[in-house]
C-alpha cells in the first residue's frame, strides 16, 4: 500500500443471508483519481460501493476498507456517519427518487451544509445557490426554491451533484449517474463531473455498465463479473489489450452490423402519410369539467418500410417514438393514413384480425411483457389460439417448441422441451425473457415486427446476442422491422432507414449511413455525437 492512497480495499466480501455476492475483492483509489467500476447487472458493483459506506441493509461484510487510514468497515456507526456526506459523498442513478419530493432542493443542500459544516442557515442557503450555479443550473437564485418535480431530469441530477459536493468530499461514489438521463444530457453531466472533479481535486468512483462513459471519463478501470474483480488497469490499456475473456467479451459487445443491404425498389410493406396521434389531457379548473385539452404526441409522420428492411426511429424520451409504435400496431386511435400491405386499421373486426397476424410487437421491459402467472407454453402459444384455433393440442405444442428453437431457447430433445414449456417467466433471465417475447410474436408468422426498445433493458453482452438473433431472423424470413430505440449503436447495427423524432415531429430522415455520418439537423448531431 503506497502512501499515496485515499481508499484501500482489501479482501472485501459481502453476503446476504449466507450467500456471498462479492467475493473478497482488492482495489485502491488514489486522491484525485477517476476510477470506473464496470460490470453487468448482478456483478456486485453497486453493492461494493454501497457497502463502503455500510449502506446495504442485512448484509454481512468482511475484509478491510481503509479510507485515510481509518477502517470504514469496523469503525463505530457514529464516526462513519460523520464521514458520510462530508468525506465520501454519493450520487444515485434516479434523481427523482433520490431527492425528497417535499423539500426544495435548496433546503436539501442547505441541510447537508448545516449538519456537516455547522454553517448558519442563511449562509448555507447562499452557499447552496453558489453550488447550484457551479453545476450550471440557470437562475440558481430562483431554482433554489424549486421542488424536485419542478426541475427537469438533467437539472435534478445537477442538484444531486451539488448536494453531494456541498462539503467538498475527498471521494465521490457515482452510481450510474447518467443512466436515467437522455443521451444528449449524458455528455453534459459527464463533462460537469470532470470539471468539478478537477476543480476540487476529489477522487471519483464511477459505477456504470456503459463503456463509452468509461472510455471518456476514467483514468483507471476495474472490471467486475459475478462478484469478482476480473481485471483492472489503465483505461487505455484495458481497452486496447483486454486480458480477461470477460473484459474482451464486454468490449466486443458493441452491436455488429450484419444485415442484408437494400436492393433496389420494392413495394413498401407499411406506408404512413401524415400520421397524427393526439392524447386528451385534463384541463385544470371548472373548464376541465366539460372539455379536455389536447396533447399532440405525433404530428404528421410520413414514412415507408420496405420488405426485409428495418426502419429505425431515434429520439429521446417524450419524443413520441413509442406512441408511433403503438399507432403502427393499431393500438391507439390516430388520424392520417397508415397502411399495411394496402390495408388500414379499423375497417372491420375481421380485417383487423387478419392484420394483427401480420404485424407483431416486442416490448422493452422483459419483466412486464410476460404475464407472471402463465406458463411458457401458454404465453408463446397465445397467438395460435386466436389465429389458428383449428390446431390440436399436440400440433400446438409442436409449433410452440419450434418457435422456441427458432429463438435459440431449448436445444434439447422434445422431452426436455416439454419441461421448459411448463415453466413460468420468473425462472428465466432478462435475455431469455426477451427471446420468449420474440417467440410469442413470431409463432403466427408475421411479416413485420415492431421492436420498441427491444434491448434497452438488457446487459450489453446479452443485447448483442438478441440483436444477432433479430438479424438472423430478418435474413431468414425477410421480416420488416420498425425499430424504436434511443441507442445510436443499435441503429447503426440494425437499420436501413432512419427517422429522428423530437417533440412529436420527424426532424430528419434518410438512409442510415447518411443520417449517421452527415447529420443535417442540429438535434441529430447532438444525438450522434453523444453516442460517440
Amino acid at each position, binding site marked *: 500500500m503506497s502512501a499515496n492512497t485515499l481508499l484501500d480495499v482489501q479482501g472485501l466480501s459481502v453476503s446476504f443471508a449466507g450467500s456471498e455476492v462479492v467475493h473478497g475483492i482488492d482495489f485502491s483509489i488514489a486522491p484525485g483519481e477517476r476510477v470506473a467500476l464496470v460490470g453487468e447487472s448482478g456483478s456486485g458493483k453497486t453493492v461494493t460501493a454501497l457497502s463502503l459506506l455500510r449502506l446495504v441493509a442485512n448484509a454481512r461484510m468482511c475484509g478491510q476498507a481503509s479510507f485515510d487510514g481509518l477502517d470504514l468497515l469496523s469503525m463505530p456507526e457514529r464516526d462513519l456517519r460523520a464521514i458520510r456526506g462530508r468525506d465520501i459523498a454519493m450520487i444515485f442513478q434516479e434523481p427523482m427518487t433520490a431527492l425528497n419530493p417535499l423539500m426544495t432542493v435548496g433546503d436539501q443542500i442547505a441541510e447537508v451544509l448545516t449538519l456537516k459544516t455547522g454553517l448558519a442557515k442563511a449562509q448555507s442557503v447562499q452557499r447552496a445557490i453558489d453550488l447550484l450555479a457551479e453545476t450550471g443550473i440557470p437562475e440558481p437564485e430562483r431554482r433554489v426554491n424549486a421542488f424536485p418535480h419542478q426541475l427537469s431530469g438533467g437539472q435534478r441530477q445537477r442538484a444531486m451533484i451539488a448536494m453531494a459536493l456541498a462539503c467538498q468530499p475527498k471521494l465521490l461514489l457515482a452510481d450510474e449517474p447518467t443512466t436515467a438521463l437522455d443521451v444528449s444530457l449524458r455528455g453534459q453531466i459527464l463533462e460537469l463531473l470532470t470539471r468539478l472533479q478537477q476543480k476540487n481535486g476529489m477522487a471519483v468512483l464511477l459505477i456504470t455498465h456503459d463503456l463509452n462513459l468509461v472510455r471518456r471519463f476514467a483514468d483507471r478501470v476495474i472490471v467486475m463479473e459475478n462478484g469478482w474483480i476480473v481485471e483492472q488497469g489503465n483505461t487505455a490499456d484495458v481497452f486496447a489489450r483486454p486480458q480477461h475473456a470477460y473484459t474482451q467479451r464486454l468490449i466486443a459487445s458493441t452491436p455488429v452490423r450484419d444485415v442484408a443491404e437494400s436492393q433496389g425498389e420494392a413495394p413498401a410493406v407499411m406506408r404512413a402519410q401524415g400520421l397524427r396521434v393526439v392524447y386528451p389531457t385534463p384541463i385544470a379548473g371548472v373548464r376541465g369539467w366539460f372539455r379536455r385539452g389536447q396533447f399532440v404526441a405525433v404530428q404528421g409522420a410520413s414514412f415507408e418500410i420496405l420488405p426485409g428492411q428495418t426502419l429505425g426511429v431515434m429520439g429521446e424520451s417524450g419524443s413520441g417514438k413509442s406512441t408511433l409504435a403503438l399507432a403502427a400496431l393499431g393500438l391507439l386511435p390516430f388520424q392520417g393514413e397508415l397502411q399495411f400491405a394496402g390495408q388500414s386499421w379499423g375497417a372491420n373486426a375481421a380485417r383487423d384480425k387478419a392484420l394483427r397476424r401480420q404485424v407483431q410487437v416486442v416490448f422493452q421491459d422483459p419483466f*412486464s411483457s*410476460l*404475464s407472471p402467472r402463465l*406458463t411458457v407454453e401458454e404465453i408463446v402459444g*397465445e397467438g395460435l389460439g386466436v*389465429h389458428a384455433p383449428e390446431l390440436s393440442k399436440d400440433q400446438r405444442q409442436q409449433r410452440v417448441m419450434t418457435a422456441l428453437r427458432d429463438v435459440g*431457447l431449448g436445444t434439447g430433445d422434445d422431452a426436455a422441451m416439454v419441461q*421448459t414449456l411448463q415453466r413460468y417467466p420468473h425462472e428465466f433471465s432478462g435475455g431469455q425473457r426477451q427471446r420468449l417475447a420474440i417467440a410469442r410474436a413470431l409463432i*403466427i408468422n408475421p411479416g413485420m415486427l415492431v421492436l420498441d426498445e427491444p434491448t434497452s433493458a438488457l446487459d450489453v453482452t446479452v443485447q448483442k446476442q438478441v440483436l444477432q438473433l433479430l438479424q438472423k431472423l430478418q435474413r431468414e424470413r425477410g421480416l420488416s422491422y420498425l425499430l424504436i430505440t434511443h441507442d445510436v449503436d443499435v441503429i447503426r447495427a440494425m437499420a436501413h432507414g432512419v427517422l429522428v423524432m423530437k417533440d412529436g415531429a420527424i426532424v430528419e430522415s434518410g438512409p442510415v449511413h447518411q443520417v449517421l455520418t452527415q447529420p443535417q439537423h442540429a438535434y441529430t448531431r447532438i444525438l450522434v455525437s453523444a453516442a460517440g
Partner: protein
Amino acid sequence: MSGSTRVSSSINTASPSLSPGRRAWLRFKRNRLGYWSLVLFCLLVVLSLMAELISNDRPLLVRYQGETYFPMARDYSEKTFGGDFDTATDYLDPFIRERLSRDGNWALFAPNPYGPKTLNYFAKAPNPSPPTADNWLGTDDRGRDLLAQLIYGFRVSVLFALALTFTGTLLGIVTGAIQGFFGGKTDLAFQRFIEIWGSMPELYLLIIFSAVFAPSLALLLILLSLFGWMGLSDYVRAEFLRNRQLDYVRAARSLGVSNWQIIRRHLLPNSMTPVVTFLPFRMSGAILALTSLDFLGLGVPPGTPSLGELLSQGKNNIDAWWISLATFAVLVVTLLLLTFMGDALRDALDPRKADAP
C-alpha cells in the same frame, strides 16, 4: 451460438417449476402461526358442520325391544317407547330414559345431549343455571344448553360469513373489473354511483327492512351484500387499471386476443392479490357484523342460535357470567384465528418479500 447452449443448460438443471400461486402457498405454510390457524379453523368448521353428531337432544341410535330406531332422521311417537301420548318423544324425559335403559334396551346419545333449541324441563338448577355435570357450560335464561347454542351459533356465523364473503367478493371483482378494464366514462359513472351508494345509511336501511320484512338470514345476506362490495371493488379496479397498460396486455391486444380472453387469462389472475389477502379479514368482518346485528335484535329470526343473541343475554343477566364469558371466548378465538390467517396471507402475497428457499 454459445449463448443458447448456456441458456438451455441453465433451464434444465433448475428445480421443478412452481406456479406463482404455489410459491405463495409455500410461503404461507412457512408462517407457522398462520398455517396452524388455518388448520385449526378448518377443523372447527368441519366439527361444527357435524354438530348434529356432537350436540343433539335425540339419540343417534336406539335399540328398543329388539328393534333399531334412528331418532336423528325420523320422529317417533312416545307410544313407541311405552309412553302415554301420541306426541314426538322427548328423550330427555327421565321416564323415557328409564325405558330405554331397561331389559337390554340402549340408546346412543351425542356427547352433549342437547340441541340448540332444547329446553331442559328437567334441569336441577333454576335458569340460567351455572355450569353443571348435565350442562357443561350452564344454560341460558330460557333453559337452553349453552354449549349446544355456541356450537350451532358458531356454525351459523361461519356459514353466513362464508356466504357473505363469497357474494361480496364476487360483486366486488365483477364491478371492479368492469370499471378498471373499460375505464373512461364507464369508470367515471361507476365511481359516482359508488359514492352515492356508499353514502346511504346502511344501518337505518337494515332497521327499516327488518321492520318491513320478516327477519331471516337470507334477507340479511342480501342487504349486507348490497353494501359490502364497494371496498373490494376499488382495489380490483386499481389493479385492473395498473395491469391493463402493462406490456403483456398490450402484446395480447396486438395478437388480437378478445377482451374477454384478456380479462380471463391476463388481468384476473394478476389482480387477485388484494382479493385473496382480504378474504380472512372479510370473513371476520362478516362474523362481527352478524354478531352486532343480532346483539341489537336486528339479525336472525328469534330461536336461531346466534352468538350476538347470547351476548345480549349475557348483558341482560350480568351475574350469569358463564354466558358472556363463554360466548366472548368463542368470538375472540374465531376472530383471532382469522386475523392470524390474514396476516400470514398478506405476508405470503407481499411482492416485496423475496423467495427464500
